């Protein structure tokens, strides 16, 4: 493995790990706040217990997300010093604001987790909401920085020099809105389905049914709304990519030959040597329509992109197809679920519904990882689109494969521990939060 591939792999690994924890860390506070709100309004202790259980999850995910985020802020320089030296002053604005948002989140979390019995109950609730909002803001800001790499704005690039730098313009580049919107909704859908899936499994296993069913309903509702909104934001994103990064669109959709009335290609194995996509389903004119709103608008293909500027089509196309397929599947479950809670209440506890949600547990996060692969791999060979190549940014430090192996080992063991801890949290629900199963009246007091 050469240094460059190792650096890219290490970055991908670190971001791929961080993205899961930060999504959960920014979305779960909203579930927690809803459940907390129901408890404060109704006094139903079931919701108090759900809130407490979820807040433990938030604490674990926040801590993990915070350290993996800290690592990333160093890794940018450790792996891509040449990139950071040039890009730091230009796209740094959202990072400096994100520092504030993240700080506020940490402070609010301190109040929320440790102030439960010490402060006014609505104050504590509000700090929980602040955790969610500032987490969401952090996410939006970080994505805005990433969007700048796709649509570098706010400077003039003349004779290899970056001049007339305007960090505000850079932050509000043309890609930030569609990317941030798509990512936020994705975070809600992914976390919603993951949380709902776990609770569905517990209901299915007939463990603490009341507790898990109530928790399931909150998470599933968030998931359903997000999954229904996501195709709309996906459409905005696709049109944006078509306009700003035609090469990425070509890679996503496996457009090897430029065509007017380009077909939408589903599946298939793209072969850049022959310019053919084998074994694919083609829907004539649909890609032109989806990308440009016109059945006959030409879509730029690989034949019009210089060879050294073509992103890897196989990875990008497959990742994109995986994301869309999972998105559609989640959309169908979401529509079904909304029909159920609005019209067909009797289906709510049907085993097949629970099974469907259990099946969907990892789907949101697989889609998130796939979508993120699309945006990153689809930008290659550029680290700053059209300005700086990724290969030119890599650190001169030798031996990066070793740190990559090391980080792989660390992140795999960390993920294993987190899964193990969640398993124990869930196993202990009967003891700590909901003893209706064994009807023992032992006081389920809080851990600290």
């Amino acid at each position, binding site marked *: 493995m050469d240094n460059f591939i190792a650096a890219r792999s290490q970055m991908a690994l670190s971001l791929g790990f961080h993205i899961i924890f930060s999504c959960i860390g920014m979305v779960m506070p909203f579930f927690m706040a809803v459940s907390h709100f129901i408890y404060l309004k109704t006094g139903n202790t079931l919701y108090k217990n759900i809130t407490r259980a979820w807040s433990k999850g938030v*604490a674990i995910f926040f*801590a993990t997300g915070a*350290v993996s985020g800290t*690592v990333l802020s160093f890794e940018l320089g450790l792996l891509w010093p040449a990139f*950071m030296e040039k890009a730091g*002053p230009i796209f740094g604005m959202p990072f400096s604001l994100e520092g504030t948002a993240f700080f506020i989140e*940490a402070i*609010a979390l301190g109040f929320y987790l440790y102030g439960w019995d010490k402060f006014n109950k609505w104050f504590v609730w509000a700090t929980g909401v602040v955790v969610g909002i500032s987490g969401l803001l952090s996410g939006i800001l970080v994505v805005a920085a990433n969007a700048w790499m796709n649509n570098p704005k706010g400077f003039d690039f003349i004779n290899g020099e970056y001049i007339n730098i305007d960090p505000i313009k850079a932050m509000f580049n043309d890609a930030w809105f569609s990317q941030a919107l798509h990512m936020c909704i994705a975070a809600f859908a992914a976390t919603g389905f993951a949380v709902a899936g776990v609770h569905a499994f517990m209901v299915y296993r007939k463990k603490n049914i009341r507790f898990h069913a109530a928790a399931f309903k909150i998470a599933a509702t968030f998931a359903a709304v997000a999954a229904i909104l996501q195709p709309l934001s996906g459409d905005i994103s696709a049109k944006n990519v078509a306009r700003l990064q035609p090469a990425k669109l070509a890679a996503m959709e496996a457009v090897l030959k430029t065509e007017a009335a380009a077909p939408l290609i589903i599946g298939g194995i793209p072969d850049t040597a022959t310019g053919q996509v084998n074994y694919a389903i083609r829907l004539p004119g649909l890609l032109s329509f989806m990308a440009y709103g016109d059945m006959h608008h030409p879509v730029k293909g690989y034949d019009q992109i210089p060879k050294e500027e073509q992103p890897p089509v196989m990875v990008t196309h497959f990742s994109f197809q995986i994301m869309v397929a999972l998105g559609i599947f989640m959309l169908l479950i979401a529509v079904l679920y909304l029909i159920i809670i609005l019209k067909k209440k009797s289906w709510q506890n049907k085993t097949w519904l629970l099974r469907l949600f259990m099946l969907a547990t990892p789907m949101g996060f697989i889609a998130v990882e796939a979508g993120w692969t699309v945006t990153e791999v689809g930008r290659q060979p550029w680290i700053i689109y059209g300005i700086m190549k990724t290969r030119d940014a890599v650190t001169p430090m030798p031996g990066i494969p070793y740190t990559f192996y090391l980080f792989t080992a660390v992140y795999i063991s960390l993920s294993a521990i987190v899964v193990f*801890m969640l398993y124990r*949290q869930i196993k202990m629900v009967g003891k700590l939060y909901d003893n209706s199963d064994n009807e023992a009246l032992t006081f389920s007091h809080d851990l600290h």
Partner: protein
Amino acid sequence: MLYVVITFLWVSLWFYLLFGGADFGAGILELFTRAHNKDRTRRTMYRAIGPIWEANHMWLIIAIVILFVGFPKIYATMSTAMHIPLIIMLLGIIARGTAFAFRHYDAVVDDMQQVYNRIFTWSSLITPLFLGIIAGSTVTGKITQQPKDFLEDYVFSWLNWFCVAVGCFTVAIAAFLAAVFLIGEAQGEKDKRRFIAKAKTANIAAFIAGALVFFASLYQHIPLLDWIFANPVGIISITAASLSLILLWYLLSKGKVKILPVLAGFQVTMILLSVTYIHFPKIVLLKDGGYLSLLEHEATGKTIDALGAALLIGSLFILPALFYLLYSFRKSANRTKA
């Protein structure tokens, strides 16, 4: 605006050293606590830093963001030359942050706690050790912008007596801060005496480590004394730190602990001030005799203006909220103690 940004950089480092340092120190103390007292140390520490734990570590992120937005050349040079110690420090940060959360939030209390504890305490030692090593490397004049030789430029630029001595000094200071902060948190006379003893040990350790730094600087021909005593700020801050040391020992032996945290904080502040003031605005001394300067290698005007504005606005939100967090938990801690 450049000076606003530099001030924020300094303040973030300062707060990270004080609060983050005390957090590290608490872990170090736990490592060096006898087995039967470990649990008590752990509980005291948890009460003291639990609520502000995450916030204490944000200062590092703020500092690093200021560095890469405002002083990209310095950030890029350092993160290339210091690749290896930074990686070790990062592993320490990962291990520590997660182990701290895991040991508190694990729903089942069993042997896994021992695993979390061990990871937590050892990473509490390793992380500040490497922070200190990296800090030391900035003035040893071994960092180059064109690294060629692996051992020379990526390893011996930080693996040398002086840097390691600075690392040990940082560890000792962290332990000292933690011990002093924890005296006030102790419940009961016995625990209080235990933390006073720890504070004394840590202070002696800091003194020895400080001497090591001095000898290492002689050995490596680093004119440390000339630097410190060549300017009035250095002389005044080192004198103030030494005088307050005498006062500190007097108060420690008398068991008068109320003012101790302020005094310890003051000492550490003076040390940081003297060592940063010496070189200002030069922040990294390079191998070729050149340097990286905060006043010469900054980003362009608009970036610095925007960064300064973001920091000022941010601090309007952060500082009151942080203050209120500290204040209200202190108040409620005092109430439970009374």
